[in-house]
């Protein structure tokens, strides 16, 4: 599996660290309550199709990427910087 890093270009999966579903970008307020935090930390849609994920290009530029990937076929459909700059 190859991921096209917006900064470095197409690179092998081995260069990337996987964080999981891109829920980390939607952190609840500290006082949002235990249900909101449980939702954020633990509960997952876990679809068998397209999923937005966070990957870090650890062995490259170090950028955090938001990757849309089909988790059944492993097709990478879209990659952008997690900070939203690309």
């Amino acid at each position, binding site marked *: *599996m190859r991921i096209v890093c917006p900064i470095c270009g197409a690179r092998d*999966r*081995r260069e990337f660290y*996987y*964080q*999981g*579903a891109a829920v980390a970008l939607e952190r609840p307020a500290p006082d949002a309550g*235990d*249900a909101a*935090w*449980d*939702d954020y*930390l*633990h*509960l*997952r*849609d*876990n*679809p*068998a199709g397209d*999923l937005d*994920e966070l990957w870090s290009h650890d062995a490259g530029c170090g950028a955090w990427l938001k990757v849309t990937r089909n*988790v*059944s*076929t*492993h097709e990478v459909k879209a990659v952008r910087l997690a900070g939203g700059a690309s």
Partner: protein
Amino acid sequence: MRFSGLKILTEGLTGNKGWGPHWRSPEPKPEYDIVLIGGGGHGLATAHYLASVHGITNVAVLEKGYLGGGNVGRNTTIVRANYMLPGNSEFYSHSLKLWEGLEEDLNFNVMHSQRGIINLVHSDGQRDAFVRRGNMMRGQGDDAEMLSPDEVRRLLPMIDYDQTRFPIFGGLYHKRGGTARHDAVAWGFARSASDRGVDLIQQCEVTGIDVEAGVVRGVQTTRGPIRAKKVGMVAAGRSSQVAAMAGLRLPIESHVLQAFVTEGLKPCLDHVVTYGMGHFYISQSDKGGLVFGGDLDMYASYASRGNLPLAEHVAEAAMTLMPVLGKARMLRSWGGVMDMSPDGSFIIDRTDIEGLFVNCGWCYGGFKATPASGHTFAHLLATGQPHETTVRHRLDRFRTGRGIMDEEATGSQHNLH
């Protein structure tokens, strides 16, 4: 039909013409007391114990593919009770005791082989940790003993002791651990459940879960609607999709775990051996193939196949531990879809929907749990109360923080188990 030595002898002398199908293939009835979604090892075991322990036989097991076609047919067949966290240790201890009586219980040869498991030790710190683990296993009532380097050498002559990257300082020996024939486990539970009146319905995919005013009423399937007083979801890697039909989100991520087998070889490895430094473990099947595996591919996946980086990693570990493996040809590799929970421990609980129950989160350890998973899930479905060995395995433990069983001391967090 019961298996016996006499039956096998008679059939052998008369052309093996007297064997029939091992389970019925009935049409689904319009209504059952209990419907189980998922005809894998855990679902079939649940059906067996519902019938044999609780006398509840108006039960259907719905399977979208064929019985035992999921993870119970895709694992590395290891059976053990070497846990040390309260909650999990008594559960797996319970499971190993059920394994020890399983063949008589089912009248089916599941080829349970208590050949022993040896966890190799590579440092003083790891030795201390394994001595502690062994003591806790013994305190739990299970068996464990520490092996000296010479004792490990005597038992495992295949290992490279002199040049290995991680020298071997001994091992933790769990003699009652071992392997079982994975498919036979599914078939044995299926046969027993069917004989006792449970309907096993294959090629029947659940497409909806009917909930009215917070109470489960039944399921929609590709073979028509089926009403049910209680529904149990036992879908392993597909648990999230099943739960979503009832509007639930689970604390589960699905990941793929690979395994490998070599061509058949003469007997050369008598035990199950784990090599923690390389995330590697190996045993030899009764057909002679060396069966081994490693860690998750480390990203979400529903593909029942693995990636190359992990295959390389496993091969490197194999060559480090047992360079002689380089002479063996790899026959096959495969992957199973694991239902990973945030703390590395499973969930057996009721849900917020009355009559709807969930059994999931087995991470990479579901096979050895098969009998106890079925036994305790059947207890919950039949009595409404958790079995004493699963009181901590609640669905809401991540929200409340009570009873979290953090298997790898990494915190209750996805992707770290």
